[in-house]
Every structure is written in structure tokens, then in C-alpha cells.
């Protein structure tokens, strides 16, 4: 018994000592950390002073950037080339950049915004995605810096990154939805060109189907791929202005024209024009199938031109065109889905925000330049230098855009995050024939907040 008491007393004593010891260790640790923080503050504090003295001394600063130009991204080369140019031009600026996979980046950037841990420069999508960050006061206004670049960057390209009349983003490339066609397959059913009218287009699909060729490939696992088809059908049915107003919340979803257009799209599905296996595939898999000759048509963003052009065997077979007009009373050729979306922005919390803004502008211009040369999209900036090496497919897209009447930005980019997901949910249900046109408009009118 005595022994037990002795042991428990010893244990309790040891524990008490350890608690005291822990406390003693923690207390100095806090005081050790405090000077460290002070040192940091001291280092950070002179930054504004440095800025004013810089003109005569040095521009040595560090800028960090996050983007989505991963190794497998078609824009990777454009980023690498642009960054190399910038590093050569500004040796005093230490530029660190990291690339993340598209989907995980969306999570990461939102978490960074919440925690106020944004890098100096970050990639973002325009309209509502960036708008949420602007509303929260996390993005640096680029109005002053834009004055230095307005001759090279038309203001019309800033529409999707302008909030309350202020500019917050540097657009890089712009893209539209294109109707890519495998001409070898079309020739098999007697078409030398992509059908220009909707009736002819349907006849072509019927002919392809009769020959055992699947007309369309669409990745059901990624709903944005379905919107590339659906939005084109809606736009060419009700016209760009009406669709734009709906996407921007200026008009209600309760629109009979939209319901009819959705039914038209659903007819394409129920007619068996879409690959049934596509429902379980990702966009990469569907794209690979298209390039392998499994489908005659593939509606997707024109950023794909770079990958198609890079495939020597496939490139001669592919053509790009506009989706034909469904209802000529409202829709017309030249009404396109797309616009500048890929954007660079500057964090308001950046200690070197002013310099980061200048850097982001110039970097954006270079990414745009190299991206255009690579065929990753059309230039949001006025092109310069020799652009004769741009691949034929991108040039064809340029031509379509040159004749453009109006652009409607991709629905899931135009809307805020919540509405976009509600919209994608209903698009998914339309593709799965779980709701018809009437159900689609009624559901969206009720559930869009």
C-alpha cells in the first residue's frame, strides 16, 4: 500500500514537474518567437520605403505566382517562355511560380483567399469566379497600371474582369466553343464541308449514324462539356442577347425559347447522335477518342487547337466551324459562346502590389503572345511580331471571331459559383433526359438564388 502511494506520489510529482517544465519551455518559446515576428515586421516594414528609394537603388523583390499551367496543360509552354522572358528582363525580381491541377486549384485558391494567403499574382477565371474575391476585397485594382497598357490591351477585353467600373484582371487568351469535325469521317457520308444549316447538319448526323459512325462525343463525367453543346443550341435558337441576359441574371430562366432549345438538344441525345459510352468518360478520354476517329464531331473550347495541331496524323483531318443556326428568327451566325476568361490577378495583400501589378500586366501580355503562337487560344492583347507560324486551325478560329457578331461567356463562368453548380446540375439532368425543357427552366427559375 505504501509502495503504491509512493509510486503514485512520484508519478503525480513527475507529471506536475513536466507540466511546469512544459510551461517553462513554452513561455520562452513565445518570447523567442516574438522577436522573430518582429524581425519579419522590421524586414517587411521598410518595403514601402524601399519602393520610394528603389528608383535610385535596387528593385530586388520576390514575387510569387500560382497558376494552372501544369506539365500536361496546353498553356505550359506559353507560361514557361513568358516567364523566361520576364526573368531575363527583370533580374532583380525573384519570381517563384507554382502550377496546380485545374480542379484542385479551385479549392486551393479559395482556401488561400479565406486565409488571406494569396500569392502576389494568381491565375483566375473571369466574371463570377474573380468577382467573389473582388467583393471580399482581396484583389488589387489595376486601373492605374492599365493606363500604361491601354494601347496594347483593348478595354473591350476587360469586360469580364471589370467590377463596379474598376479593372481587376489581366486577360491572357480568349477562347470560343468550336464545332470540330473529322473530315475523313464526313467524307465517308458524302460531305466535303461541315454542314452549314441545321437541317443539313441533322441529315449529316443521320447519314453518319446509318454508316455506324457516332456523330458526337461528349464527356458526361464533366458537365461543362455538355454545356458546350447545350449553350450553342440555346444561343442559336434564342439569340445571344437573351441568353446573355439570362446568364447575367438580368432576365429570368422562365423563357419558353430556352425550353424549346433544350428540347431540341434533347432530341439530339434521344436520336442517338451522342456516344452512349461518353456518359462515363472524362473529357481527356473523349478527346482521345475523337482524335482516334471514333466520333465525327466534337464541340469544345478552341484551346484544343494546340493539341490537334500537335498531332501530325490527325491535324490534316480536322476542321473547325460554327454551330449552325437552329432558329433563324433570333439566332444567327457570328453569335458565339466564349470570350476572355483566363486571367491573372494581383492580391490586395501583396506587400509589393504595385510592382506585382506591373509585372502581371507584362507577363499576361507575353503569355497571350506565346499562347497564340502555340495555338492555345486567341489573343486578348493586340498581336505583335511574326504570327505566321500560328497553326491553320487557330487561324480558322480567328476568322470565325473576325466575323463575330456577339459573344456570350460560358454559363458556368458567367454565373456565381453557387448558381453555376445549380445550372450544371440541371444541364446534367437534361443530358440524362431526367428533365425536359419545361422542367429545366422551371427548376432553374426556382433554384437559382
Amino acid at each position, binding site marked *: 500500500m505504501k509502495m503504491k502511494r509512493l509510486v*503514485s506520489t512520484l508519478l*503525480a510529482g513527475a*507529471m*506536475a514537474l513536466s*507540466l511546469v517544465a512544459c510551461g517553462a519551455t513554452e513561455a520562452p518559446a513565445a518570447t523567442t518567437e516574438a522577436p522573430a515576428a518582429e524581425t519579419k515586421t522590421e524586414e517587411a516594414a521598410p518595403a514601402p520605403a524601399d519602393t520610394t528609394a528603389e528608383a535610385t537603388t535596387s528593385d530586388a523583390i520576390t514575387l510569387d505566382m500560382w497558376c494552372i499551367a501544369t506539365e500536361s496543360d496546353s498553356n505550359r509552354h506559353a507560361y514557361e517562355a513568358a516567364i523566361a522572358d520576364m526573368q531575363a528582363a527583370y533580374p532583380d525580381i525573384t519570381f517563384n511560380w507554382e502550377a496546380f491541377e485545374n480542379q484542385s486549384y*479551385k*479549392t486551393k485558391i*479559395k482556401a488561400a*483567399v*479565406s486565409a488571406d494567403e494569396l500569392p502576389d499574382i494568381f491565375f483566375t477565371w473571369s466574371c463570377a469566379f474573380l468577382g*467573389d*474575391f473582388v*467583393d*471580399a476585397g*482581396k484583389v488589387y485594382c489595376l486601373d492605374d497600371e492599365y493606363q500604361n497598357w491601354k494601347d496594347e490591351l483593348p478595354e473591350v477585353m476587360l469586360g469580364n474582369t471589370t467590377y463596379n467600373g474598376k479593372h481587376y484582371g489581366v486577360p491572357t487568351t480568349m477562347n470560343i466553343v468550336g464545332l470540330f469535325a473529322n473530315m475523313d469521317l464526313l467524307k465517308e457520308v458524302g460531305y466535303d464541308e461541315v454542314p452549314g444549316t441545321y437541317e443539313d447538319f441533322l441529315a449529316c448526323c443521320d447519314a453518319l449514324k446509318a454508316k455506324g459512325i457516332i456523330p458526337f462525343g461528349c464527356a*458526361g*463525367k464533366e458537365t461543362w462539356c455538355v454545356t458546350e453543346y447545350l449553350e450553342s443550341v440555346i444561343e442559336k435558337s434564342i439569340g445571344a442577347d437573351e441568353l446573355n441576359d439570362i446568364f447575367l441574371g438580368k432576365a429570368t430562366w422562365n423563357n419558353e425559347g430556352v425550353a424549346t432549345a433544350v428540347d431540341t438538344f434533347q432530341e439530339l441525345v434521344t436520336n442517338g447522335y451522342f456516344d*452512349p*459510352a*461518353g*456518359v*462515363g*468518360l472524362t473529357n481527356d478520354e473523349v478527346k482521345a*477518342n475523337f482524335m482516334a476517329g471514333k466520333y465525327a464531331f466534337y464541340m469544345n473550347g478552341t484551346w484544343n487547337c494546340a493539341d490537334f495541331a500537335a498531332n501530325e496524323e490527325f491535324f490534316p483531318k480536322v476542321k473547325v466551324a460554327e454551330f449552325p443556326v437552329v432558329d433563324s428568327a433570333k439566332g444567327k451566325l457570328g453569335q458565339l459562346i466564349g470570350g476572355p476568361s483566363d486571367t491573372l490577378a494581383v492580391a490586395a495583400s501583396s506587400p509589393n502590389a504595385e510592382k506585382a501589378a506591373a509585372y502581371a500586366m507584362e507577363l499576361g501580355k507575353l503569355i497571350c503572345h506565346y499562347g497564340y503562337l502555340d495555338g492555345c487560344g486567341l489573343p486578348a492583347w493586340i498581336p505583335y511580331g511574326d504570327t505566321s507560324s500560328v497553326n491553320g486551325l487557330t487561324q480558322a478560329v480567328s476568322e470565325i471571331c473576325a466575323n463575330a457578331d456577339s459573344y456570350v461567356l460560358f454559363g458556368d463562368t458567367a454565373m*456565381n*459559383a*453557387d448558381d*453555376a*453548380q*445549380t445550372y450544371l*446540375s*440541371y444541364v*446534367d*439532368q437534361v*443530358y*440524362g433526359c*431526367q428533365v425536359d425543357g419545361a422542367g429545366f427552366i422551371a*427548376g432553374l427559375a*426556382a*433554384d437559382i438564388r
Partner: protein
Amino acid sequence: MAKNKTMNHKSATNWKKGVTIFLFLLPALLLFISVLIAPIAVSIYRSLQDWNGFSEGTFIGLKNYKELFTNGSIKFMVALKNSMILAFFSVFVQLPLSLLLALLLGRKIKGERFFLSVYFMPVLISTVVIGQLWLKIYNPDYGLLNRMLDALNLSSWKHVWVGEVGYALGAILVPTIWQYVGYHMLLMYAGVKGVNPDLREAAMLDGATNWQVDRYVVIPIIKPIIKVSVIFAVTGSLKTYDLVRILTEGGPFQTTEVPSTLLENMLFLRNRYGMGSTISVMLIVLCFAFALLISAAFKEKDN
């Protein structure tokens, strides 16, 4: 006087004992509060707000809870139904299979250790790897399953396994059951091995067959372990996420959504941290409720 002294001494000792116990428990208590209680409390608080994660939240009362069941694009009821189906198959297919394997291996069969390792191996493999593996099996073009059906002249049975409404949930169920059979088997195997061999021998001497021994001796003894397995299987089904995320991403047409994929959707795609918190509160409540129900059911049976 002496009595008072003894009383004082006793109460001082009791007080010291209490302090000692409290001090010993304090670190664990702080840890418990900070990693479990505090997040739940914050989730409940946030579930009453309309909050996008970076701006100030607005108090909206129970509106998120109402919307969870009324918004046609959120599909919480579909997610809940899918979790229940997963729980049903886990309890009535996975666990009996695990029990069967545990009982068989518990009979000291030849190659016991080898089979134990083989059945447990899927538990050791990362779920991402398993998901990718099964995606390749299910691929409609080059997948093993459709190729095998072709080879067997059963092409009409071919399907887009993860892309068709009627098959997608089943396509998730198979690898889920396969992956965790080994886990539950190991739990039950430990129980089976813990059964006193004398009891088994005595039953055998009385003329019981192997199955009768298992039925009337072993299973009643390992009942507490079976109860734990049932709780794990049901709550695990409610919390299931990884395989669904990899195999179907909640599709096709949101028919395989589960609460956790909805939660991810709300937080990271919709920026609706308030609604995300609502779903997490619902999950916590459901997990607790099911755990209590299962415990009560087992207790009632014992009584």
C-alpha cells in the same frame, strides 16, 4: 477531535486524488475539445449562416436545413438514399462474407496466414489506387469486364458501368464491399481466435459439427465485435467519399451522389460554406443516431 482530523485528512486526500485525475485527464480533454467538440460547435454555428467562406456570414436561421430538402439541384435525399443502400449492402453482404471468412480461417485451415494476408491486402492499398484499378476494369472500351463479356459471347450484357443510371451505384458497391471485407474479417478473426479452445473442444465432444460450434459458441462470444463492425459499416457508408469521387464523381446525372460528395460540392464548387456545414451537421447527427440505434438493437437482443 481525532475523528475530525481523520475526516479532514480523508477529504484532503480525496481532493488531491481528484486534482491528480483531473491533471492526468486534462491533456486528453483539451485535445478532445479542440479536435472534436469545437469543430462540431463551429459547424453548427456556421450551418445557421449564409457564408461563402471569405466574406462575413449572414445569420439565416434554419433556412439551409430547409433548402437541403427542397432545392432540386442539391439532391440531398438522393445522397441519403444512396448511403442507406451502401449501408444495407455493407451490413447484409459485406459483413456476412467477412464473418464467413473469419470463421473459416479461425478453424486453423491450411494456408491460414496466406489467406489472411490475401483478404486483407485490399485494405492496405490506397483507395485512389483501387478506384483507378476498377475504373480500368469498368472502362466501356478497353475495360476488363466488357472485354471478358465479349470473349464469353455475352456482348449484349456489356454496359457503360459507371455511366449508366441503372449500374453506376452497383459499380461503386462492388469495390467498396471487396475493399473492406478484409477489414471486418480481421476484426472478427481476432475475436474468433480469442474464443477459448476448450469451449470448442467441449462442444465437439458433445457431438456438435463445425457449423454448430460456430453458430452456438463462437458467434455469441464475438457478438460485441460484430456490433462494432455493424456500427463501422453503417457509419462508414454514411461517410463514404473516396471511391464515389473517383469512380463516378456523383454521376451520372447526380444519381450516385453521397452526402460527402455533396459536402465537397457545396464547399469547394459552390462556395457555400454555410450549406456545407449544414450537411456536415446532418452527417454527424445521422452517424450518432445510427450508432445509438445499433447499440440499442444489440442490447435488446441480448436482453
